[in-house]
């Protein structure tokens, strides 16, 4: 038996890899980014691995773009925000702290903050708030070639949509103004021309119901 001399990066221990045993008793490591979990992807991105960034983009660009669009309500600007978020993910991957938030949550929070910053900078306060949540009907998503994670996230998405859709329309509206526009209670009250107490009640009731519906 030949003593195997194994070379490996420090991150190797966290990578899901398969070893192929050949006639010569060599172990070969074969990394397919699609099989890696989000955290490992981030570690590879921190090392400047473009394939890993490309995979992160494939996983989350739709979500990031949807949030950005919900905030800025303009496709071109939303795409600029999306580009900015993934460029930052590339540059800041080394500062990502898994103790603080999941990778998807990190991206979601960063996107919401950046897009709302843009909105405030541009002082966009449209009179017409054409804010709406997505349709509850399931989207025709190609299910072949989907990883288990992708199937899971589609189910999760469906669950959240159904929960939000179950709220009364006035609660949905107040919630959307808070989440996508970053408005405070008093700003929402002003925009909707409703008493402050009413708005507070709607937000609280909406969040309490969602918590019950979405808690595992």
């Amino acid at each position, binding site marked *: 038996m030949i003593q195997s001399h194994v070379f490996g990066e420090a991150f190797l221990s966290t990578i899901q890899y398969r070893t192929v045993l050949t006639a010569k008793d060599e172990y*070969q490591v074969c990394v397919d980014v699609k099989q890696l979990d989000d955290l490992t992807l981030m570690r590879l991105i*921190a090392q400047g691995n473009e394939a890993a960034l490309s995979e992160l*983009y494939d996983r989350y660009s739709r979500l990031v773009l949807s949030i950005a669009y919900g905030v800025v309500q303009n496709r071109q600007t939303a795409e600029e925000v999306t580009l900015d978020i993934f460029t930052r993910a590339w540059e800041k991957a080394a500062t990502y702290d898994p103790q603080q938030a999941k990778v998807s*949550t990190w991206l979601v929070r960063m996107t919401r903050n950046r897009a709302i910053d843009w909105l405030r900078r541009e002082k966009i306060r449209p009179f017409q708030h054409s804010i709406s949540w997505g349709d509850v009907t399931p989207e025709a998503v190609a299910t072949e070639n989907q990883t288990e994670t992708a199937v899971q996230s589609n189910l999760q998405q469906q669950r959240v949509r159904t929960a*939000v859709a179950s709220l009364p329309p006035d609660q949905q509206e107040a919630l959307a103004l808070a*989440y996508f526009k970053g408005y405070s209670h008093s700003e929402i009250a002003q925009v909707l021309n409703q008493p402050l107490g009413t708005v507070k009640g709607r937000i609280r009731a909406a*969040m*309490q119901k969602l918590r019950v519906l979405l808690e595992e």
Partner: protein
Amino acid sequence: MPNQTHDDITDLIPAYALGALDADEAAQVEQHLTTCARCQADLAAYEAVTDMLPQAAQKIEPSPALKKRLLAQIQTTNTAVPPAPSRWQTWIDNLHQLWRTPRWQPVLALAAVAVLIAAFILWQQAPPAPQQIELTATNAAPDAEGVIEIATNGRATLTVNGLPPLAAEQQYQLWLIEDGQRASGAIFSVSDTGAATVTITAERPLATYSAFGITIEPAGGSPGPTGERVLGHNL
């Protein structure tokens, strides 16, 4: 500020998690949160709800051009993994600040000598630079680039760019060549842009091989090279 009770604050937690409280109320919540475990737990639950909300947003499909722009952009800013702002530098800057304070000067003069000695020892222990082996493209993939980097601890990685993406039933394979014997060093696929970084596995230190080559092989690799060579290097 009046001492807010839990009952006053607890109703504000959902809106706080959403970021919807006005500044005065947000400040009250923050103060109460420092002492109330129940509200902290509530906050975590409502933050989880907030983080789920975008799942219900209207879904928008990114244009294909956007991904191309991203990948082009990171190529130009490929100073990825920028050296972290040196703690050493920050420390020296802080020392400079102190130096301007007269009563610290004698202490600092002594400290400066100690630092010089420490720096000298560190400098003597500075590790040698990692070894890099550039791979050359063949006519089969003229745009390809590849480099093998051997760290000082012997760990080796292969990074490639510009290799044509392959069909699912094919993969690239790295060969470690010595005395006409070819051993497999890695089997890998590349991204849409032809990039990949893989760890090399070998029976002995990479520097002891005389040549390296990358060929196109059936997925999972071959016992010996059978396909076209796309990158190579003869030491």
